[in-house]
C-alpha cells in the first residue's frame, strides 16, 4: 500500500509504469487518473484538504480494499493546492491476479475517495470562484459496496 498526499505534480505515465513493473507477479493492473478539465473557461483549480485526516482516511479506504479483494497491492496519489487544466489531480492503481479484483478495487477506491476523503475542490473562472458541489450520484455510488 502506497498512499501519497502531495502538492507537487506527478507524472501519471511514469507512476503507472513503475507500479506495473513493480507487480509483474500480479498479472492484472488497473489504473484510474483524474485530470483537470479546461472546459467551461476554467483557468485553475485549487484543492483544500485536511492534513492528517486525509492520510488517515486514505489509509483506511486502501486498507478496506486490500481486505475485501485479493490484491497484491494498491497505490493512491492525491494532490492538493493549485493546479491548472491538463494536470493530473490524482490516481489510483491496483494489482491483482484476476482482473475482476483489480477493477472492483479500483472502483471502490475511487467511490470512497470521492466522498469520504477530506478534499474540497474550488474552481476558478474569469471573475468567479466556486466550491464544487458534491454530487448525489457520488454519494449514491457508495451504496453498491454495502452488504456483499
Amino acid at each position: 500500500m502506497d498512499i501519497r498526499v502531495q502538492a507537487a505534480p506527478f507524472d501519471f505515465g511514469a507512476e503507472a509504469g513503475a507500479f506495473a513493473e513493480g507487480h509483474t507477479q500480479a498479472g492484472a493492473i488497473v489504473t484510474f487518473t483524474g485530470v483537470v478539465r479546461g472546459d467551461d473557461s476554467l483557468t485553475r483549480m485549487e484543492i483544500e484538504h485536511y492534513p492528517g485526516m486525509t492520510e488517515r482516511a486514505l489509509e483506511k479506504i486502501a486498507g478496506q480494499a486490500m481486505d475485501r479483494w485479493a490484491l497484491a497491492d494498491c497505490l493512491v496519489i492525491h494532490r492538493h493546492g493549485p493546479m491548472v487544466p491538463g494536470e493530473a489531480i490524482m490516481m489510483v492503481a491496483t494489482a491483482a491476479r484476476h482482473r475482476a479484483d483489480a477493477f472492483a478495487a479500483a472502483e471502490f477506491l475511487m467511490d470512497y475517495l470521492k466522498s469520504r476523503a477530506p478534499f474540497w475542490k474550488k474552481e476558478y473562472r474569469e471573475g468567479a470562484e466556486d466550491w464544487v458541489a458534491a454530487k448525489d450520484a457520488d454519494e449514491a455510488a457508495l451504496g453498491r459496496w454495502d452488504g456483499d
Partner: protein
Amino acid sequence: MIDVLYFAWVRERIGLPKERIETQAATVADLVEELKAREERYALAFSDLSALRVAVDQDLTDFDAPLAGAREVAFFPPMTGG
C-alpha cells in the same frame, strides 16, 4: 479546551481555519449551538447542518457524537475529492 477546524466554504464564512475553544459541550450538536450563539457569521455557517459534515479527532462522525475526551473537531462541506 478543544481545537475547532473549518474547511472550504465553512472556513471562508467563519473567516478563520482554526480556533481553540473553551467549552463544556457534551456533543457536537451542543458545540454547534454554542458557536451559533456567538456571532452572526457562525449562525450563517451552521444554518443548514444537512449541508455540513463533521469529524471528531479526524474520524467522520455525526452531529450527535459525544465530545468527551475529544481534542479536535472539524466542520466542512461534503467532500469533493478524486
